[in-house]
């Protein structure tokens, strides 16, 4: 029977540190657009930071399920007919990457604000808007790809390959649209000076993840279809 004296509560190294913020994220890490900073130190990971990984894990699971469905379906029937991917997909890939880069430039400028570096020339809101626009362009490009496939007479139910093409790209596009919604919200909050660093970071993670997911899907479509 072990006899241990209870440790005092573990609340961080310093005694006067604030407890972990809770309730709606606490409103403690607001980033003002003006660059006037109220940085919060000793901050435990804000929920949005953890939350985004949780979201990404669940999206990964969903696409893994789609992938295994594709692999099983390819093996089950003899009706697997290869299709050539519409060329516009490759252009879309570049657009999506460019969007991520624009978002990253904007995020660096916000980060610089956060660190107290004042740069009059920086305009993070513009870069974020560019990222948003490029994201929309990507979705438009995907729609163009669907139209191209349609014009070739390949519809959702034509064959397993076209089915998977539409399902996977549409599922990805829905997630991209979700990301665009998040991005629009970030821009609005930045303009209102109520943007939290964690929100921006989470949105950026999500957005870059969409790139990775798209590259994976493109590889899968290219390999399997």
């Amino acid at each position: 029977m072990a006899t241990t004296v209870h440790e005092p509560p573990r609340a961080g190294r310093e005694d006067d540190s604030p407890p972990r913020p809770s309730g709606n994220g606490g409103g403690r890490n607001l980033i003002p657009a003006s660059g006037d900073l109220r940085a919060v130190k000793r901050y435990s990971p804000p929920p949005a930071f953890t939350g985004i990984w949780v979201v990404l894990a669940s999206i990964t699971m969903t696409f893994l399920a789609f992938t295994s469905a594709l692999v099983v379906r390819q093996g089950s029937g003899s009706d697997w007919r290869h299709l050539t991917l519409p060329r516009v997909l490759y252009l879309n890939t570049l657009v999506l990457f460019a969007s991520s880069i624009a978002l990253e430039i904007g995020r660096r400028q916000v980060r610089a604000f956060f660190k107290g570096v004042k740069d009059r020339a920086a305009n993070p809101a513009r870069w974020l808007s560019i990222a948003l626009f490029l994201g929309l362009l990507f979705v438009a490009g995907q729609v163009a790809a669907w139209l191209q496939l349609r014009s070739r007479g390949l519809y959702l139910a034509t064959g397993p390959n076209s089915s998977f093409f539409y399902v996977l790209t549409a599922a990805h596009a829905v997630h991209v649209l979700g990301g665009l919604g998040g991005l629009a919200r970030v821009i609005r909050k930045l303009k209102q000076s109520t943007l939290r660093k964690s929100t921006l970071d989470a949105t950026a993670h999500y957005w870059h993840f969409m790139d990775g997911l798209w590259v994976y899907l493109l590889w899968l479509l290219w390999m399997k279809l």
Partner: protein
Amino acid sequence: MHDVPVHHHAPPTSFLRKHVFSLDHKVIGKQYYGLALIAVFVGMILSWLMRIHLGWTNLAIPGLQLLSKSGAPGGIITPEYYLQLMTMHATIMVFFVLTTAPFAAFGNYFLPIQVGAEDMPFPHFNMMSFWVTFIGFVVLMSSFFVGDGPTLGGWTQYAPLSAVGAVSGPGQGTGVVLWATAIAIFCIGQLLGSLNFITTTLDMRTRGMSMWRLPFSAWAWFITSIMGLTAFAVLMPACILLILDHVAGTSFFVPGNLVINGQIQPHSGGSTLLWQHLFWFFGHPEVYIAIVPGMGIVSHVLTPNLRRPLLSHRVMVYSMGALAVLSYMVYGHHMFVSGMNPVSSLVFSFPTLVITIPSTIVVLIWMGSLYGAKLRINSPSLFALGFISMFITGGISGFFLAQPSIDIMLHATYFVVGHFHLVMGVAAMFGIFAGTYFWFPKMFGRMMNETLGKIHFWLSFVGAYCIFMPFHYLGIAGNVRRYPAFTDDYLQPLIPLHRFITVAAVLTGIAQFIFLYNLVHSRFWGKPAPENPWEATSLEWSTPSSPPPFDNFGGKLPTVYHDPHQYGVEGASADYVMQTSPEQIKSGHDEA
């Protein structure tokens, strides 16, 4: 004390924001509970109809023709309507009761309080989680009133029966689409909920609340939310593909050359086993999503009534974690005779047998903790002990079903029905009851009536055994499940046993109205609850009032000094030490 003032949004004042579209996790928890309560009574009445039909096939149930003219002409249930009722019973119970009540309802209400937070981190998502789930329920229920009624394909919705449309039977048209839509919507709701649960546990713990100081119930919800995150993320794409097969004419699950009702189906090349794999990859973890919160609640309810902590906090948590991990490796045991490669049946059978080890550890930890305890008998502890008894019985019948060779005889028989009803139906339900009697005083500031609670327990405990134990005998005798009537010669001798079960089911069902009465009556006229009626230690009993104020701890977050479940502590001023008590104690119980 290190209590630090916190800033929180002001409580809402409008009726809509307060009670309907509330962001408060406590209100959302109660909404989930209300939804589960409606769902469980609907599900139970469906089971009555089924049981009555099974006992007395030609008996007219007066008034039933009003619900479905074609399904129950003159009140006599047709075979297809029986299957539709059965499918709805299972879907409602599995999704809208066993997932929502122990996990979403109690978890929402108590997880933030038990970690010492004012709310979940994403209250808007939390609100959406409930309302999305609610829409899912409405969509599911609507299938009773459209076209030729709800789907008859069983809650497992095996393709191609579920994927080819109305040609395969009544309810297989609109009914299946509504079913799959409802489940996909439900998945979204639970994914949003899991997101909140995980972040709450990881990021919202108050000062001093390390992971190992979380009580069992919080651990159980945390583990369950991780399972939910992965399981529902797989079921949702499966449902989407099913809907596409159904309405868009794709062939994910439907192979070619099927001749149904004299028509060749315009599909080709799909894999019917693919649906089963995707479904059971979700389906088996779902069993643990239903039961692990029950284990957590039972451990949480038992400790104050044993006046001692469980033998080991960590072993219990590790066992629940092991169950969660193993639950993904065993799903193939639902498919032993499905035409899956016979070698994979053996491969799936071993983790299935191994999963009995953590289950046994959990049970033995409870039993070992009972040894030498000072057991208090009250409604929550009775239901918690009843859970243990049910879990043992239901778990042991799993020995049989884990073995592919025995499954040749028992697959798709009432043995399976008895097994899962005991282990994930009745046991999980007992967990919900234990939680309800235990936490009601905290949720509503009033005690539930003990006498009625005990009557409810006795009738439910004996009743549940009378219903579900004979299911095993039926299964051993080869009685196939999902039969609306028994026309085979070898099933005739079993009909008296079916009638016995029907009588037991109706009586046990009636007993549940005692619970409903107790719930409603105590809500308004119950005895006012003392601050800490069970002399329990976890944070929900440290809130300034019952029910807790809008921000849970009245403007100050608590500081945690001790492990949860510190009961029977030697040398302490009382026989239990609250987690928030700064008292220095020597502990003999499993500190780390």
